[in-house]
C-alpha cells in the first residue's frame, strides 16, 4: 500500500497519534491530579517500611488516643496521634494504604476476569451463551450487594482474603455489561469478519483482534470498580464485618474511631479523608481515562 503524497505530508507536519494522546493526557487536569495522587499512594504503599516512623502493630496502653500534633496535647513523636490501643496513627495510615490498594486492585482484578470473560463470551458467541450471561448479569444486579456481602462475611468470619473474595465475586456486573456491548460492536467490524473469513481460530480472534480494542473500556471500568471495592470495604468495616484487626485498614480505622466521633473527631477524620482522597483520585483518573480514550472528546 503506497502512501499518497498527501498523507505523507500530513504525517510529517501534524502531530503523531502518540503525541496527540500525550497532549490529551497531560492536558486533562482531572486525569493528572488523580494520577499523581494515586501514584503518591502507591509509592507510600511500596515504601511503607521506610516511611512509617513506628511499628504499626506496636501497642502501648499508656498512651491511648493521643491527639495529632496540631492539637494542644499533640507531640511530634506521634504526628497523627495514637489509636485506641496506643499505636501510632501515622504508621497505621501508611501501612493501611497497602490494604486499601490491595483490596481495590485484587477485587477489581478478580471481578474483571470474571466479568470480561463473561462479557466477551456473550458478545462474541451471542445466541444461547449471550442469553445465559445476560441472565446471570440480571441475577447479580438483582442481588443487594451490601446485604449479601454482609451475610457472607458474617457467616464465614471476616478476614482480608474473604472480603477481597466476596467483593471480587460480587462486582463483576459492570465488566460483563460493558465488555458484552463492546464485543458486540466489534464482532461486526470488518477486520473481525475478515479474520474469521481467513480461518483464524476463535482464541486468536478474541485475544489478538478483540481484546486490544476493548482494553480502553476495560481500564476505565477497572478504576471505577477499584473505587467501588474500596468504598464497600469501608462500609463493611464500618458495620463491623470487614477485615479483622490488627490489620491497619482505613475502613477499620474509621470504624474504630467512629465510637469517639463526638470527642476525638480526628480519629475518624484522618482515615476518612485518606479514603475520600484515594477514591476521589481513582475516580478522577477513571473519568479522565474515559475522556482521553473516547473516540471523540465529550465536549
Amino acid at each position, binding site marked *: 500500500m503506497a502512501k499518497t503524497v498527501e498523507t505523507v505530508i500530513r504525517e510529517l507536519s501534524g502531530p503523531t497519534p502518540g503525541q496527540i494522546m500525550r497532549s490529551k493526557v497531560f492536558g486533562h487536569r482531572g486525569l493528572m491530579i488523580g494520577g499523581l495522587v494515586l501514584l503518591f499512594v502507591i509509592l507510600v504503599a511500596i515504601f511503607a517500611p521506610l516511611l512509617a516512623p513506628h511499628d504499626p502493630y506496636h*501497642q502501648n*496502653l499508656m498512651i491511648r488516643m493521643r491527639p495529632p500534633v496540631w492539637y494542644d496535647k499533640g507531640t511530634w513523636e506521634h504526628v497523627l496521634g495514637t489509636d485506641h*490501643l496506643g499505636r501510632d496513627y501515622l504508621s497505621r495510615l501508611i501501612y493501611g494504604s497497602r490494604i486499601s490498594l490491595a483490596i481495590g486492585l485484587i477485587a477489581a482484578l478478580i471481578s474483571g476476569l470474571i466479568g470480561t470473560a463473561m462479557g466477551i463470551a456473550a458478545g462474541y458467541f451471542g445466541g444461547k451463551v449471550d442469553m445465559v450471561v445476560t441472565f446471570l448479569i440480571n441475577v447479580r444486579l438483582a442481588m443487594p450487594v451490601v446485604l449479601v456481602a454482609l451475610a457472607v462475611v458474617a457467616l464465614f468470619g471476616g478476614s482480608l482474603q474473604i472480603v477481597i473474595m466476596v467483593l471480587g465475586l460480587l462486582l463483576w456486573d459492570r465488566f460483563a455489561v460493558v465488555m458484552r456491548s463492546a464485543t458486540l460492536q466489534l464482532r461486526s467490524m470488518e477486520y473481525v469478519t475478515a479474520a474469521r473469513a481467513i480461518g483464524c481460530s476463535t482464541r486468536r480472534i478474541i485475544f489478538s483482534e478483540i481484546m486490544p480494542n476493548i482494553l480502553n473500556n476495560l481500564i476505565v471500568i477497572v478504576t471505577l470498580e477499584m473505587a467501588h471495592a474500596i468504598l464497600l470495604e469501608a462500609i463493611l468495616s464500618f458495620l463491623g464485618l470487614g477485615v479483622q*484487626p*490488627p490489620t491497619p485498614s482505613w475502613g477499620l480505622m474509621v470504624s474504630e474511631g467512629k*465510637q*469517639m466521633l*463526638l*470527642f476525638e473527631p480526628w480519629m475518624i477524620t484522618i482515615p476518612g*479523608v485518606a479514603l475520600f482522597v484515594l477514591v476521589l483520585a481513582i475516580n478522577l483518573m477513571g473519568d479522565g481515562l474515559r475522556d482521553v480514550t473516547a473516540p471523540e472528546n465529550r465536549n
Partner: protein
Amino acid sequence: MKKLLAGASIIALTMVAAGSAWAGKADDTLKIAFNKELESVDSFYNSAREGVIMQHNVWDGLLYRDPYNGEYKGNLATEWEWIDDVTLELVLREGVTFHNGEEFDADDVVYTVNWVVDEKNGVKTQRNVNWMKSAEKIDKYKVRIHLKAPFPAAIEYLAGPVSIYPNEYYAKVGPSGMGVEPVGTGPYKVVKVEPGKRFVLEKFDNYHKDSPKGQPTIGNLDIRTIPDFNTQAAELFGGGLDWIWEVPADQAEKMTAMDRFTVANESTMRIGYLDMDAAGLTGTENNPMMDVRVRQAIYHAIDRQAIVDALLKGKSRIVNSACFPSQFGCTEDVTSYDYDPEKAKALLAEAGYPDGFETDFYAYRERDYAEAMMNYLNAVGIKTNLRFLQYSALREQRMKSGTPISFQTWGSYSINDASAFTSEFFKFGSLDLARDEEVRDWLDVADSSVDPETRKEFYAKALKKIADQAYWVPLFSYNSNYIFTKDLEYKPAMDDIPRFFQMSWK
C-alpha cells in the same frame, strides 16, 4: 469538611444548654435508649438484657432479691418454706391485681409454672425453669412447687427470671400475644409495643403497696432502640433522651469531663476469661495448649491490670478465679499468675517452644480487648491470628472441634451462685475444654448438696485445681456506665439491671 467537623464537635462539647427543650422532667416522661432490638417482651421468650429489664419492671416474681444488699424478700409470696429437699411451699400475697384487672392467686402461679416447665412450650432459656417439675395449688393463696432434684439455687431463680403471668389472659393470647400486649403485676404497665423499636410504659397505679420493689414514681417511660452511641449522645445533648446505658468506658470518661450529665459506673456480674484447649479437642498431636506450662505462660504474658486500667476502667477489677467473687461458693484464694513476660518466655522454652508458636485466637465481643491481649501474646512469641465470629458460630466451632484459645465472657444470668458459673463450664458439657474428671466430681457434690459448708468446700477444691492447672485465664469483671440527666435520681445496682421503679426526679 475536616475543619467543619472538628469545629462543630468542639461547639457541641462546649455548648451549655440550660435545660433542653424536651427535658423529661417537665412532662414526667423518662426517655430511655436500648442498644439492641428486643425480640419479644414475653420474658420467657427472650434471652437479652433488655428483656430482663422489661421483666423486672413489668412483672413480679414470687420472691425478690434486694439488689443492693442481696437479701431475699417476699414479693408475690409472703412466706416460703422447704417441706423437703424437693418441695417448696409458698404463701401468696392477697389483694394483688394484674394490669388488666385480673386478680392474682394460686391459679396464676400454678398455671405459669406448669406452662413454662413443659418443654413443648419451648421457653427460650430452659435452665431458668427446668429445675422445676410442677406446681400444685393447696388453696387460693398457698402453692407448692415441686423440684426435679434438690436445687439449692431455687430461691435465687424464683427471685430472678421466674415471673408470674395471669393465667386466664396467658391461656388466651399465648407468648405471641404477651409479646405485643404484655400484662403483669409489676410497677409499670406496658401501653404500647412496636416490636424491637419502641416500648411505652406507664406507672401502674394499682401496684401492690407492700412490694419490696417500692412504688414507682416516674409517670411514663418511653424506650426506643437506638443502636449507635453517637446517635444516642446526640439525642442526649438535644434532650431527646434522658437515660442511656452500656456506654463504653472512653466515652463515659469524656462525658464525665463535660459535667452536663450524671455518669454512674457500677460493676456487673460479667467476667471475661480466656478458655484454652487443655483437653486437646482441636487435636492431641503436638498441641501446645495441652501443656500446663504453656497455659501458665499465657497467663503470665497478659497484663490484665493494664487492660483493666486502660480499656475497661470504672469499677472493673482483675479476677483470679473461674467465678464471680460475690457468688456463693466462689473463692479468690487460688493460685494466681503475675504479669511477667520473661517468666512466660521461660515457661514456653521449658515446654519446648523457645521460639513460641502460631495459633488462632477466637473472640466474639470487644474486639479491642481481644486485640490488646493478642498483642501481649505476640510479645512473648505466640503469634496469634484473630478469628472474630458471631457468638453462635463460635459456640458451634467450640462444640464441634474446639478452639485453641478463645476470649469468652459469662454473666451467670445474674445468678449469685457459683453453680451458674463454674459448674456451667467444668462438668463435661460441650463447652468444657478442660475435661477434668476430678473437678467435675467435686462440682457435682457442690451443686447438689444442701449443706452450705459442704458446697463451699467443694467449690473451693474445684476452683483451686482449675487455677493450678491454668485451664482458664480469668481476666476481669466488667462494668457498666449509665449516663442520665441531672434531673434524675438513680443509683445503679450491681446486677446491671436498671430498675426504673427505683428512679425518681430530683
